[in-house]
């Protein structure tokens, strides 16, 4: 199962993303305008493991990530060398994908795995004026995300215009 997380508007997504992006083999997480932000309660780790206590349309993102055993593709506008607020919100609400206990991995503290699936991570950042410093930050950020998700970075790319994504996602 593939997973696609993007911050495109519905009309953009329809125009730019291939039809295969919404088949049975791919789960798509997009902005329906209702997502609420993580409140840092750790309920998804302690009170209701793997489920966020906020029961909106984004309450089971950790479990959704666990279904991904192929590739996680993220398409995000670049904000200061990181993800856009929506994509970051999805990431923040998905921390139950990992276990609250810690493990030392590559001589650094990270979270234990909760699930056995493994996926590769591909990220496309878009934006008209992404600076070199922002690109450097973004490259390091995605690697850090991969370290914490215990996954592998397949590709990190930067595009100036979102219309370029049509050629890159097939």
């Amino acid at each position, binding site marked *: 199962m593939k997973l696609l997380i993007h911050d495109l508007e519905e009309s953009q997504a329809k125009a730019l993303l291939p039809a295969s992006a919404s088949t049975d083999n791919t789960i798509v997480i997009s902005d329906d305008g209702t997502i609420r932000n993580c409140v840092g309660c750790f309920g998804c780790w302690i009170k209701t493991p793997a489920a966020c206590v906020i029961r909106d349309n984004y309450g089971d993102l950790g479990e959704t990530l666990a279904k991904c055993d192929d590739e996680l593709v993220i398409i995000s506008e670049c904000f200061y*060398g990181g993800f856009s607020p929506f994509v970051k*919100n999805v*990431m923040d609400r998905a921390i139950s994908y990992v276990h609250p206990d810690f493990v030392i991995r590559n001589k650094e503290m990270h979270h234990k795995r909760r699930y056995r699936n493994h996926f590769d991570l591909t990220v496309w950042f878009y934006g008209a004026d992404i600076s070199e410093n*922002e690109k450097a*930050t973004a490259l390091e950020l995605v690697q*850090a995300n991969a370290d914490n998700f215990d996954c592998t970075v397949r590709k990190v790319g930067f595009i100036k215009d979102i219309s370029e994504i049509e050629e890159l996602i097939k």
Partner: protein
Amino acid sequence: MKIALINGSPKANGSVSALILQSLRERFPDHQEQRDDGACCTCSTCGSDTSGACGTCINTYHFSKPQINQQDLAELAACDTLVFAFPLYVDGIPSHLLSCLSQMEGYLKPLASKEMRVYAIVNCGFYEGRQNQHALDMMQNWCAKTRLIWGHGLGIGGAMGWRQQIKVNGLKVRDLSLRK
């Protein structure tokens, strides 16, 4: 000088970010919060007869939602120094705070002749404070985009220990300091 201490934790109470800022705040006991009406707080810094002469005020803000109200934006725009304290979320800035920063960028960038310096203190549950590096880099990148001056950044690890102290011992943030 006007200084804003900005708590970027979404938690209403008991956050490590609040603890850090309170500890920082206590190091400037002579400077009080500015009054709600924007007038001088008449603290003791410049003497009761010349209230307002020093012009130094330290105000505290709490960004717990993804929007900043217009009054807070206007107050922040008048500051000389911004000090952010927030928790590390998935190697970066919490999404609600990211929205606030984007809003601030839009508000502050067009303002001419401002010399605002920005500091950031990021805390995480991992032992290694260096895991906050990417969030600090993003704050520095935000400064560049918003045309503000980047001061310094500090990454603090092991922050969960402080939270446990607050929770287990029933302490409130005001009862603790960074030295304990």
